[in-house]
């Protein structure tokens, strides 16, 4: 029972809010959710050394999965902290919103532990369906939200379909849905096109979650349409689980022919270049971060396509850093948008006068996303590049390096707006101590992971 504690606590959390949503108590919910979330986070840490298998090997709990659960719990926790006193959701939907966040996290937690194709699909769908529901939940709902949510649903359905198609091939070849059996039986088929085809199609379902090319189309619209808090969650937490599963799937194909790596390289290269180039012209900050997310999905693939333990550790490290730096950027958006509206890059003008702490937070997040030392984004990228290079993929490393230069243009634009542009009207923005604390935590974490990455990296290396 102890080993299932993270999942059980999240389930309990969701059920409690399900019950609350049936009544009409609406006060103080957020504080309750926050304390609950901290508890989930603590429980996940407690369960880190638990190991075991359930359901005859379909559900595997080990150090890697527990680590990912901690990060997922942290992501949920932060998202709920962002929710603090914001009027971006209609109050009557608040318990449902929190409940679905919980269910989505539950699905993702199950996903990282799932070791069998069917349970993977079920876990993925639990998390996806919850998100389909909360995308349109936004105060002053317009067609934009509905359109975003429809797009999300359609793309999600298509990618699940493609994934199931790939899985059917895997099952057809290996006669099993258990990853342990597949891992054993698969190498025989990897020399043939059909083997590679099957694995790439299966991965496609998770490319969707990671917003990697060619399943990236949903990201900009959903980021723009969904409320700021929802976007924060969608932009960060599901990507962690997606990375975990992609690593698992790549491990199956680790003895594959170069063609398999080539496919991943093309996908990664296009994703980076496309994300960064289109990012250059974005005005809406959330859209900009969506394209930046597409580019970052490409960077993460660098670690996965290395097909080495160093590469997997680097990808895990980078997705953790990405969670933190992306959340920092989104938090500034959440604070700045008083009524839950979208923030344009131009709205950042004069931020350093209005609220210096926010300017520093978003500036640091931007530099970290761009990969400038001494931030976590730099060390993460260094490990990714090194591992990809080590496996002999110099071309993709050079593409990644060039992309860093392209991306700096729009990240610098964020910094330039917040630091050197003067606003037409600027009234000081008073931050609450709660907001200040979160900002300091983000600043600390970004710099900490840049200067002392070895603690976390060591843990990940141990895990893979």
């Amino acid at each position, binding site marked *: 029972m102890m080993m299932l504690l993270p999942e059980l606590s999240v389930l309990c959390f969701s059920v409690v809010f399900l019950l609350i949503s049936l009544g009409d108590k609406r006060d103080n919910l957020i504080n309750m959710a926050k304390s609950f979330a901290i508890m989930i986070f603590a429980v996940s840490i407690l369960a880190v050394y638990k190991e075991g298998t359930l359901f005859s090997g379909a559900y595997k709990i080990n150090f890697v999965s527990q680590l990912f659960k901690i990060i997922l719990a942290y992501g949920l926790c932060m998202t709920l902290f962002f929710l603090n006193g914001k009027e971006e959701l209609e109050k009557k939907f608040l318990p449902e919103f929190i409940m679905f966040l919980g269910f989505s996290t539950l699905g993702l937690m199950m996903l990282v532990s799932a070791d069998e194709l069917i349970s993977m699909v079920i876990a993925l769908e639990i998390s996806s369906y919850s998100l389909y529901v909360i995308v349109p939940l936004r105060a002053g709902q317009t067609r934009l939200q509905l359109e975003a949510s429809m797009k999300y649903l359609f793309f999600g359905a298509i990618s699940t379909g493609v994934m199931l198609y790939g899985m059917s091939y895997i099952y057809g070849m290996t006669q099993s849905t258990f990853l342990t059996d597949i891992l054993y039986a698969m190498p025989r088929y990897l020399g043939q096109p059909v083997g590679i085809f099957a694995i790439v199609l299966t991965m496609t379902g998770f490319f969707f979650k990671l917003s990697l090319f060619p399943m990236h189309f949903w990201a900009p619209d959903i980021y723009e349409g969904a409320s700021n808090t929802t976007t924060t969650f969608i932009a960060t937490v599901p990507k962690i689980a997606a990375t975990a599963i992609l690593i698992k799937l790549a491990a199956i194909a680790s003895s594959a022919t170069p063609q398999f790596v080539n496919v991943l390289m093309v996908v990664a290269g296009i994703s980076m270049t496309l994300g960064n180039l289109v990012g250059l012209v974005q005005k809406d900050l959330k859209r900009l971060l969506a394209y930046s997310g597409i580019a970052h999905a490409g960077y993460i693939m660098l670690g996965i396509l290395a097909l080495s333990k160093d590469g997997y550790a680097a990808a895990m490290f980078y997705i953790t850093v990405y969670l933190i730096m992306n959340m920092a950027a989104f938090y500034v958006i959440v604070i700045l948008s008083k009524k839950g509206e979208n923030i344009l890059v131009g709205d950042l003008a004069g931020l*350093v006068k209005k609220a210096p702490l926010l300017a520093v937070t978003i500036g640091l997040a931007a*530099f970290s996303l761009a990969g*400038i*030392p*001494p931030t976590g984004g*730099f*060390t993460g990228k*260094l*490990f990714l*590049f*090194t591992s990809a*290079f*080590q496996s002999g993929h*110099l071309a993709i*490393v*050079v593409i990644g*390096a*060039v992309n*860093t*230069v392209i991306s*700096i*243009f729009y990240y*610098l634009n964020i*910094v*330039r707006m917040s*630091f*050197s542009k003067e606003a037409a009207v600027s009234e000081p923005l008073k931050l609450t101590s709660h907001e200040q604390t979160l900002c300091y935590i983000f600043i600390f974490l970004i710099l900490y992971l840049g200067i002392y*990455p*070895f603690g976390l*990296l*060591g843990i990940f*290396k141990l895990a893979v």
Partner: protein
Amino acid sequence: MEKYLMMNTLSFPMLSTVIFLPLAGAFLLLFMRSDRAAKITALITGIINFPLSLILYFKFNTATHLFQFGEHLSWIPSYNINYILGIDGITLFLIILTTLLTPMCILCSWTAIETRVKEFMFCILLMETAMVGVFCALDLILFYVFWEAMLVPMYLLIAVWGGPRKDYASIKFFIYTLFGSVFLLVAIIAIYLTTGSFNIPEAMFRDYSFSFQTWVFLAFALAFAIKVPMFPFHTWLPAAHTEAPTAGSVFLASVLLKMGTYGFLRFCLPITPKASVFFAPYIMALSVIAIIYGGYVCLSQTDMKKLIAYSSVAHMGFATLGIFSLTLFGWQGALLQMLNHGVTTGALFLCVGIVYERTHSREIYDNAGLGKIMPAFVGFFGLFSISSFAFPGTNNFVGELYILVGTFKVSKVAGFLSIVGAVLAAAYMLRLLKQIVWGREDKRQIADMKAREYVFLIPLAVFVIWMGLFPKPFLAVIDSSLVHLFGQMQAFLR
């Protein structure tokens, strides 16, 4: 402990102190309430750091080529990344130059910077940490971290406190430099994968294949050529120099540009010696083009800062010419030239800053005829101007002489053409000087220099003359490192 490193024998980690004291000062600044307190704290930090770096000079062992005051700590063990510091004759004076210029930059911004003083001083101190770090780092990743970390405060210095075209200039500066650096990073990773460590001295003089050397050299050279800046990559420099506040221009001209030539000496020559020899003629050609082109462009400038910026292109051309002449004379000259250019050009930018604070114009014509109004200022300005075109008896003369001797040994054509460039330098500097001193009758009421301004110009003036008349103490320090490097190159290439 290590065969290339003499461990620190002082009772405390000297190099780390010099690197991180400004950082500590910068964090202290965050707790300051008033602008005045911030300025004073920054100044005190800068002033304390200078004598600390002088201790390095007095304790420096000139008899050895090894890296001294070494510090060695493990940083990221799983990738074999270490925190290794050490200095030799090549870097000692560059560090002292940096620590000397920092308090001067703070002083020259005392009244010139009126908005967000605290943040300005914060950036200046951050710059000092990063710049000293670049010269001390003996681990490629540590080096790269300092090298890139420098971009952020420098970018902010230009983008926040810069002139009217600051947006354009700051972004161009950032993107240009980053473009070079990312390939540097790829080359660093390539070296790591070949040698198994990021250690700089251990990567030197190894049996890499020629094609490997070529690619690594090109990646390194691109990064350093942009920083120097060498001829086709120089366009960011005039923009950044002109728009930056005085302190930013001084840092750019005096220290940042030196990092390019330092990189050539520390990385390109020892890590990729064969490729360096192979590419030397091309780089010499580019240097000569930079010298002549820079000189011609200077002749037509009307903006004082732009003129000095382009003259930097020409002067740094001499430095790269000296390095890639691959002679001992050339290297000695190049190192001296780096120091000299740092002092002279830094001083010239400070002078322009002094004028700009009074007349709010950088145009030569607006500032013409100051001879009678600001006699003391013109005295200093004259000294630095003639030193800038290498008048005998001033510091630049020594450096350029060494470089020319080295160059003539290798190529008569290059030597001859660079003499033409040296004559051009006299032409444009004298033109500037003439305009500023006697340009026209001027009856304006402009105050001459204040005591604060004397404080930061006098040490530089002393240095100009000292180096010009008696360069021996400087050569004594740099010699053993360069002679050793030269010997290793010779032995390796034979």
